[in-house]
């Protein structure tokens, strides 16, 4: 990787231009804008030629690492390959060149994408209705909780202000509940990270709005008691929210609707192969069972009764509008392209293959790394540091050294159930050869930990940036380029 660390401002040369703009016809009249709001100096915009600009951004892109560069086993993020056909379909002019304020009659094809995608997701998840407003996973969580809250309030069931969240949950779960004005109650998990039904029971009363769960959980383990949990929560009058972050292993195999969940979100950018992690944007559609359809955020695409589609506005019960227009449309086109490319038969293979890959990596490495819960996992699993901890080598050291071998690091220090969590999610799109390369690198690192721990502590050695001072980066971040002020 060629090192390149310039800012475009540093390339700037006075008077250099990449294009010719028409003459400035502005007369200089600032009208009623108050004096104190008027700019005193000219903005210090970079002045570069077109080749300078192209080379600058090409060099910067060479510093990036994504699924197109190599293996990216970032746990809980489902960094699967993004098929090129998705991009090709999304760039068709009929999808790429429309305006969200065009009359419905002129964008019937786009509206049909919403309709078809809702139908496909409905059959995959068992949720009857979807809304595509939420722009990412946590946005979907917040929207789902708004629906939950609105449901209880509309039934005049005003005491339900508590949301139960397992202590192993993604941090976004309690954060979303708090943002929604609900009170978070933690339920402790067993040593394997699954919910203890006996700990859950005493929490269930008429103040519970619902429970948020991820299944499989953050350790990649399936909550086998989900049906009993669903019955208990429903019996106390609460609803079940399914966090779709870990939907990938269930794809085509198990449906949250059948497990007893009432509301869920999907991360189209994870499970349905659209770019994320710098290549986004995301999309976090929310699905609900039929009895909650009226609470979904609006606007939504609805049949117009004449064989076509229309954009329907807010109903009386709706949780309201959660984004401009109807979410990130191009992401939905890509997700639908993915679903239709695979088809009903092949999409059933995505989940099992992601489970196979995860278990292959786990079994291959459990002699070198400590596996706290040794059983069949789903799409991901968690190590707790090295099997031989005597060298004092940490999860961070292992992750940094992996960069030298050309792999993206796994998620580290999450979940918080262990001190040296290394969370690995290979996804189904990797070949056995790629997985073997990763396994060999991980074993080599374990050997290095015993033979030369100092070398690991100072890793990475082959990257443009070594170890940044994380404390300084968090407490004294430099976020702004400060140019020399030009006063002419």
């Amino acid at each position: 990787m060629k090192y390149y660390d310039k800012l475009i401002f540093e390339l700037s040369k006075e008077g250099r231009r990449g294009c010719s703009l028409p003459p400035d016809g502005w007369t200089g009249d600032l009208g009623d804008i108050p004096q104190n709001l008027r700019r005193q100096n000219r903005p210090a915009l970079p002045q570069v030629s077109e080749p300078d600009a192209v080379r600058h951004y090409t060099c910067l892109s060479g510093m990036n690492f994504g699924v197109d560069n190599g293996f990216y086993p970032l746990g809980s993020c489902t960094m699967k390959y993004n098929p090129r056909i998705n991009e090709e379909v999304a760039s068709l002019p009929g999808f790429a060149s429309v305006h969200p304020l065009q009359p419905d009659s002129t964008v019937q094809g786009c509206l049909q994408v919403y309709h078809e995608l809702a139908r496909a997701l409905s059959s995959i998840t068992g949720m009857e209705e979807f809304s595509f407003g939420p722009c990412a996973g946590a946005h979907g969580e917040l929207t789902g909780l708004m629906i939950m809250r609105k449901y209880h309030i509309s039934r005049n069931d005003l005491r339900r202000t508590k949301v139960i969240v397992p202590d192993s949950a993604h941090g976004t779960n309690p954060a979303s509940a708090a943002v929604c004005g609900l009170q978070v109650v933690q339920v402790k998990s067993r040593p394997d990270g699954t919910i203890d039904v006996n700990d859950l029971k005493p929490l269930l009363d008429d103040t519970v709005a619902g429970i948020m769960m991820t299944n499989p959980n953050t350790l990649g383990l399936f909550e086998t008691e989900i049906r009993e949990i669903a019955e208990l929560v429903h019996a106390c009058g609460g609803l079940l929210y399914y966090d779709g972050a870990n939907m990938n292993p269930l794809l085509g195999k198990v449906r949250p609707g059948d497990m007893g969940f009432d509301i869920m979100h999907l991360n189209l950018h994870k499970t349905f192969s659209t770019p994320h992690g710098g290549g986004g944007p995301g999309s976090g559609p929310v699905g609900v069972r039929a009895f909650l359809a009226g609470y979904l955020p609006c606007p939504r695409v609805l049949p117009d009764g004449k064989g076509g589609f229309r954009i329907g506005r807010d109903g009386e019960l709706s949780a309201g509008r959660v984004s401009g227009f109807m979410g990130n449309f191009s992401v939905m086109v890509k997700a639908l392209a993915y679903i239709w490319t695979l088809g009903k038969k092949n999409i059933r293979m995505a989940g099992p293959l992601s489970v196979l890959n995860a278990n292959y990596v786990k079994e291959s490495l459990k002699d070198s790394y400590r596996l706290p819960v040794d059983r069949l996992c789903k799409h991901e699993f968690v190590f707790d540091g090295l099997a031989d901890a005597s060298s004092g080598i940490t999860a961070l050291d292992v992750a940094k050294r992996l960069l030298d071998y050309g792999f993206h690091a796994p998620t580290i220090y999450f979940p918080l159930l262990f001190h040296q969590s290394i969370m690995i999610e290979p996804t189904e799109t990797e070949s056995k050869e790629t997985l073997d390369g990763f396994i060999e690198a991980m074993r080599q690192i374990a050997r290095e930990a015993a033979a030369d721990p100092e070398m690991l502590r100072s890793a990475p050695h082959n990257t443009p940036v070594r170890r940044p001072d994380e404390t300084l980066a968090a407490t004294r971040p430099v976020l702004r380029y400060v140019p020399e002020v030009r006063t002419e």
Partner: protein
Amino acid sequence: MSQTVEGLYYSQTHEWVKVEGNEALIGITDYAQHALGSIVYVDMPEEDDELTAGGDFGAVESVKAASDLIAPVSGTVLSVNGDLEDSPALLNSDPFGTWIVRVKLSDSSELELLMTASEYTAFCDSLK
């Protein structure tokens, strides 16, 4: 691996209490700072806030995680350690010399529920 100091009281959530008459200093243990890693921010209560034993009274944020501070004893906050606003890393470099809050104890019998240094060491060993 982690250090303890004799004469302090310890909680299962890794806070220490140093009693001075009917007042007490509260901080986090060496085990806690080690588990958290480099600490970048401490969210502290305000003077006159009431602490309830078992309730949270702030949070410690590190490059790895954010963790609630759980009050080992009940009392009224007399002062907070202003040094931590600019230098949160003091909790890493000198965990037992860096107090977070000084409180006026409201029920000193709560101290009996806390651990001694040797009990706390044994407790930490049991977590491994």
